[in-house]
């Protein structure tokens, strides 16, 4: 927090104070989840409001890690989320560039059709999709987990809009240097879209990491579960009352990779969400 902020008038200070209060309020449920994860299930069956009283325990985390399958689920989630993110970025960028810069018959209709995908709710397509993947024998495979999520209308829309905003002069200069379309896309235009790539990458990664419905019905073998699915499967029927500490530890554990990711890429993420370019 810069000193300049505090040297400003009372309104600025009030604004900053309100922001801090709101941030603390926002963090309260997270702190509660974390505190509950450090309590034994037996204690939490009696009361859930005594957060800062002893005894604390790491047993819930130990229980999660004691299940050897957890590491496989983490690996699966990493493979699926990273591959999905990379492919969504690649496909959306190509499609966005095509729609923004290339003239071809039916471009407008194709773009409208791509955007129409935004209006289709997932449950409407999940059964046909499941049948197609069953026919192809792709369930319980990485391909089965990754491929259905590569159609990303939002990504295409975002990238199209971003490509449209890039000055044509850049492209024309490259064309005068006899650069091919691919070269122009890959070497000249794509590097200009880093903020949009970062935004789309973050959303894609989070969506893939937190995805539950599709892995639930596509991955039926425990060794192909993703982390969200695997952790949910370990919950007992009345986990909300009999295994609350374990449940909260699972929530923290599942969120950890995302938090680590945020810690590493904080600068890019903030810049991307703010619509600017990371310094």
């Amino acid at each position, binding site marked *: 927090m810069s000193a300049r902020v505090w040297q400003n008038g009372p309104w600025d200070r009030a604004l900053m104070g309100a922001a801090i209060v709101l941030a603390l309020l926002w963090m309260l449920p997270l702190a509660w989840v974390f505190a509950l994860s450090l309590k034994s299930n037996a204690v939490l*069956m*009696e*009361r*859930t409001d005594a957060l800062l009283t002893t005894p604390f325990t790491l047993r819930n985390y130990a*229980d*999660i890690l*004691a*299940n*050897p*399958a957890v590491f*496989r689920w983490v*690996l*699966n989630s*990493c*493979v699926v989320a*990273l*591959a999905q993110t*990379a492919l969504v970025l690649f496909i959306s960028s190509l499609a966005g560039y095509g729609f923004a810069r290339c003239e071809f018959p039916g471009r407008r209709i194709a773009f409208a059709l791509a955007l129409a995908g935004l209006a289709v709710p997932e449950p409407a397509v*999940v*059964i046909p999709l*499941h*049948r197609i*993947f*069953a026919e192809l024998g792709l*369930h*319980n*495979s*990485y391909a089965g987990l990754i491929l259905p999520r590569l159609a990303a209308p939002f990504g295409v829309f975002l990238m199209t809009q971003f490509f449209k905003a890039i000055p044509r002069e*850049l492209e024309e*200069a*490259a064309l005068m*240097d006899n650069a091919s379309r691919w070269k122009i896309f890959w*070497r*000249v235009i794509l*590097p200009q879209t880093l903020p949009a790539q970062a935004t789309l990458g973050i959303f894609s990664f989070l969506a893939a990491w937190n995805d*539950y419905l599709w892995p*639930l*019905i596509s991955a*039926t*073998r*425990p*060794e192909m579960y993703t982390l969200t*699915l695997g952790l*949910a*499967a*370990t*919950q*007992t*029927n*009345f*986990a*909300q*009352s*009999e295994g*609350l500490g374990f449940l909260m530890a699972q929530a923290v554990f599942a969120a950890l990779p995302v938090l680590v990711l945020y810690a590493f890429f904080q600068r890019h993420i903030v810049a991307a969400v703010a619509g600017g370019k990371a310094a």
Partner: protein
Amino acid sequence: MKPHRIQQRTTRRARSPLRRLAVAACLGLAGIAAFAQGQGGASGGEVHITLARFFGSCDAEYGQVTDPSKASSECGIITALTNRFNAREAGRIRVDTQVVEHSAYYQQLGARIVGGDLPSIAIMHSSVLGDFAKRDLLQPLEDGFAREGVDVADFTPHARHGVSFGGHVVALPYDSHAALWHINLGLMKQAGLVDEKGHARLPASVEELLQQARAFKRATGKPYFVWLTLNDPSFFARSVLGLVAQQGGSLFPRGDRAVDLTTPQVREAVQFMRTVYAEGLSTRNMDYSAALQAFMAGAGGVMPNGTWLLGDLTTRAAKPGNPLSRQYEAVPEPTLFRQPATWADSHVWVMLRNPRQTPQERDAALRFLRFLNDESLAWARTGQLPARQSAVDSAAFKALPMRASLGPVAAHGTGLPTTVARQSRVMGVLGDTVAAIVVSGEPLEATLAKGQQRINRLLERESRFLGASAVEAGVAPTAQAGVSHGLR
């Protein structure tokens, strides 16, 4: 050199380490994926069967345990039982468990059926069996049971009724789980509501219950009931179902396609619950977890809840220093009207119709079902009641805490008629309707009529959707007026 080319080269140079990193990451990821994808698979010789179930996964704690007596909880005991079977049949049969979260279980199973990716055995509730039986998705099992030595005649009446469709037995009943009264005897003593043996004095009519509840509140300053009034429509639905059945009534007096919530029995049951709540004789604003916490903290005398809590609460009562220490008992819900009846459901094991299943897989699956049937006493330690009458009558079962008095529940258990479609949704709407009247104070007659309309619209849609297939499957409604799961 043009400025943009200079910029381009600079960018390229600056990005080359990043690019190398990205390429390395891609290659690494592909390698890991290929390795991971190649893991697992069946070993030769053994017949592998898959077991789809909920109850959670607790391999960390019980992954190596083969003695169910050394495990606790539903998850622990079924894991130990599966381990025991695998150890016993090593080299011949292997059961691979596929655990799915409880709330998402049927969603996944439905998708698996559509996609043809079927488990050899799957767990279900008997209340949803009708939806699967009407679609002809379940294998009849009576021949297999006869061959494997599973005695269908030994199933309890509630259990047998729940798995019988169109003249076939389509599942192995595993238990009966029912509503009980979990009682804080310390508070009951304080209110003078215990008999000479120290057991809770149970009411025999609605009037007596209200008198006792008022006396309890005067003596202890606490409500008689700990109720699950928030976000738990099933509590209200199950309560009304039991109270209506106790009056000899039915929610489906004219067959399985139309609910009737305007009968005097339904009105009587709902009015009773409304009186209890309005007079402050029950706790308020509590969901499942809050009600359980409140009961364990001594906030009320009686918590109507399921058999599944027996294990936890008995363990808690055995420990000193809490309000339930040596002050806890569980009893069947008392008969407040003409006849005993209480809501009950069952966990059952089914084998889905699967054209790709080999005779060896089917035989192996049947052998595992036989094993589970034989071990039903081990499962009874969870608090659920055995589905085998011989197990209910056994000395070993009666020796378990509280179980001696719970045997009749297996006989008096009642539910919706087995052929009523979409039972989970029907119970949900019923519960919401009753909660609106009891908790929110909505007008009784109009709200019941609205609830009835919603349920019947739901059933009509379902009936239109699969009316023809029900006839083709030969599934006739088995429940007549006033008769459902129970013995009546």
